[in-house]
């Protein structure tokens, strides 16, 4: 039942992905199938609950199969688009095999197998997941409802559940994904974390290889996934890694659209960014950054309709979830200071803790060091050719937006120091794939790896006998 249910999820994701874009690589489609599928399915669960349908394995699977059938019919009438995709993937060219590329792929495979084994072996044990994400998953599966879940409605929990930063305030993707596998009869929810990790790798490799050589893409993918703190969290039930996957991939697809100008990649980016805000409210920092770049593009290209659509779509999950909470008496006051203010002590503490994190190789390995070295070495290309300037601006804006968000929060439930040490540290996971993406796609590194390829595969001289 579990495998059937998860296959339905992947099929749903596959249908949605192929309906949106016919310009995705096979690796990207394979990875996105589950990532998009589970996001859509959790969205579907909230819709079903809202209209009063009890959440059971049968009802959720039936609704998913109904949507798959609908999308199948749409795809049937858009056969040309599907053929277009098949034609596109048939242009796939095997990379020239180099041992360095194979070595990187092997290293990725070893890390993936070991990490997935760990994720599947140990049940949920970390405090945040036990107290929040996994508990909600279990409770919703048991009660068959979100809005009337005993965890939220019981008089004994009522006060705790409505305190600032209560578990209710978290966006529901992870919790409902866990709930879905519990509905399917799983003993633990860790298969979700394992599948998200394993789906992330091919998509990351696929997007990176759009901008760099296969060897470089494989190396950068490897360094992304072995980032110490991020790898540690990827096998736990926390939501930070899940959010990092959606936010970073959304931004990468947006950058792919920006530089390659393939329209459907923009809508894939929008879909993934929607899921990033469906996973965590902080996804809004990336949506804001993408919005700024797109606004600038729209002014230049005078295409405001798409801008409005992008903004509407990306903010839809946050609006939808908050309306759902409000109308079902599950809303709590957010500890957010909406007016601008200046607190020098607070700002100084944020700055100090931030630098401690950036300097930490124990948490992020070589990520920040490599980025800094590559950035400096690429200054010439940035100034002369605007090399990946949009990528840099986007990363910078997202980081500024999130830091401002942290500054504007009124910490009534915990100290700012703890938030910086733990929450901010985990939020930076979203930047790790982006920084490695920049390293792999910037001019200097591409030039260097181009030389390596030329060394390995020198162009053959053609002798012509007249």
């Amino acid at each position, binding site marked *: 039942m579990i495998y059937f249910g998860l296959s339905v999820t992947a099929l749903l994701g596959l249908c949605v992905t192929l309906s949106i874009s016919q310009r995705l690589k096979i690796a990207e489609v394979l990875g996105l199938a589950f990532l998009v599928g589970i996001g859509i399915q959790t969205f579907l669960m909230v819709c079903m609950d809202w209209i009063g349908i009890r959440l059971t394995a049968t009802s959720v699977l039936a609704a998913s199969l109904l949507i798959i059938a609908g999308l199948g019919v749409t795809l049937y009438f858009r056969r040309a688009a599907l053929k277009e995709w098949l034609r596109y993937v048939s242009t796939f060219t095997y990379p020239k095999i180099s041992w360095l590329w194979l070595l990187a792929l092997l290293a990725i495979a070893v890390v993936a197998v*070991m990490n997935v084994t760990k994720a599947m072996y140990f049940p949920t044990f970390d405090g945040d997941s036990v107290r929040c994400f996994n508990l909600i998953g279990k409770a919703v599966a048991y009660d068959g409802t979100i809005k009337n879940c005993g965890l939220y409605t019981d008089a004994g929990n009522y006060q705790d559940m409505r305190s600032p930063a209560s578990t209710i305030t978290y966006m529901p993707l992870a919790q409902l994904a866990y709930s879905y596998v519990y509905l399917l009869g799983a003993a633990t929810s860790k298969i979700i974390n394992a599948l998200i990790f394993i789906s992330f790798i091919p998509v990351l490799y696929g997007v990176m290889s759009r901008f760099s050589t296969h060897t470089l893409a494989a190396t950068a993918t490897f360094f992304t996934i072995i980032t110490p703190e991020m790898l540690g969290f990827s096998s736990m039930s926390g939501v930070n890694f899940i959010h990092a996957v959606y936010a970073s991939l959304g931004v990468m697809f947006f950058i792919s659209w920006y530089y390659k100008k393939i329209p459907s990649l923009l809508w894939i980016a929008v879909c993934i960014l929607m899921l990033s805000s469906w996973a965590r409210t902080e996804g809004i920092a990336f949506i804001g950054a993408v919005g700024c770049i797109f606004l600038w593009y729209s002014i230049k290209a005078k295409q405001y309709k798409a801008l409005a659509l992008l903004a509407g779509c990306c903010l839809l999950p946050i609006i939808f979830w908050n309306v759902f909470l409000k109308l079902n008496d599950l809303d709590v006051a957010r500890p957010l200071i909406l007016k601008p203010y200046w607190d020098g002590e607070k700002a100084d503490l944020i700055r100090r803790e931030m630098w401690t994190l950036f300097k930490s190789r124990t948490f992020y390995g070589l990520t920040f060091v490599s980025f800094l070295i590559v950035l400096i070495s690429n200054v010439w290309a940035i100034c002369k050719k605007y090399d990946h300037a949009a990528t840099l601006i986007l990363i910078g804006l997202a980081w500024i937006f999130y830091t401002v968000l942290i500054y504007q929060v009124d910490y009534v439930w915990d100290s700012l120091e703890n938030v910086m040490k733990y929450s901010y540290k985990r939020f930076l996971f979203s930047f790790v794939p982006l920084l490695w993406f920049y390293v792999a796609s910037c001019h200097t590194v591409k030039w260097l790896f181009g030389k390596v390829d030329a060394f390995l595969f020198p162009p053959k001289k053609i002798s012509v006998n007249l």
Partner: protein
Amino acid sequence: MAKPVNKKKCPQLSKGKRPLPPPQKEKGTPVGRWLEGVFGIKSIALAVVGGGLFFGLITKDPGYQWVWNSLLKGNWDFIQKHRNATLDERNQMKLGFDYVFLSYVKQNTPEDAVILFPLKEYNTEKGGDYQLSGNVNSRFWVTHFVYPRRVVYKDEQETNPRYKDVTHVAIVAGHGYEDLDYPVTERSYFTVLPKSIAEK
């Protein structure tokens, strides 16, 4: 700043009925040359040098050392050694006595039970050879293991409306017997008992 975008060169963002432009054929690899890197001495030499640098760097860095020695290899070896462990045993490996006790509470109470835990300061006291962790003082942490049963603490007598509905008492480190409506002669440090004879 990124290059300014020329509208004329940009494809439209969304045009449902407009046929897609034909995919551009990527620069292919002739079949004959596909495998040449496998046998090329340069490729092997580069892989040896690159691989050496790659792993040299990783083994020198404290973060990556932790990833390999503890997170990946350490856990892999542990899992291989205990590959036949049941889910209960795996829970115990990570959560220790907390899991053992809370599973016992779950198995010995009905689903609609409201379980009273002692004052929070007593919950981490040692009882015989066993002791619960501070996590037990979190209602939601305990609820995770006993759901759909409800959890109340003795500290919440005035604040929790479910206090009056208590059906069972969790005995922690010998505390909690005073909340039972009947005397108990054979006492153990950790157990769960019905609050009244009627519940029994």
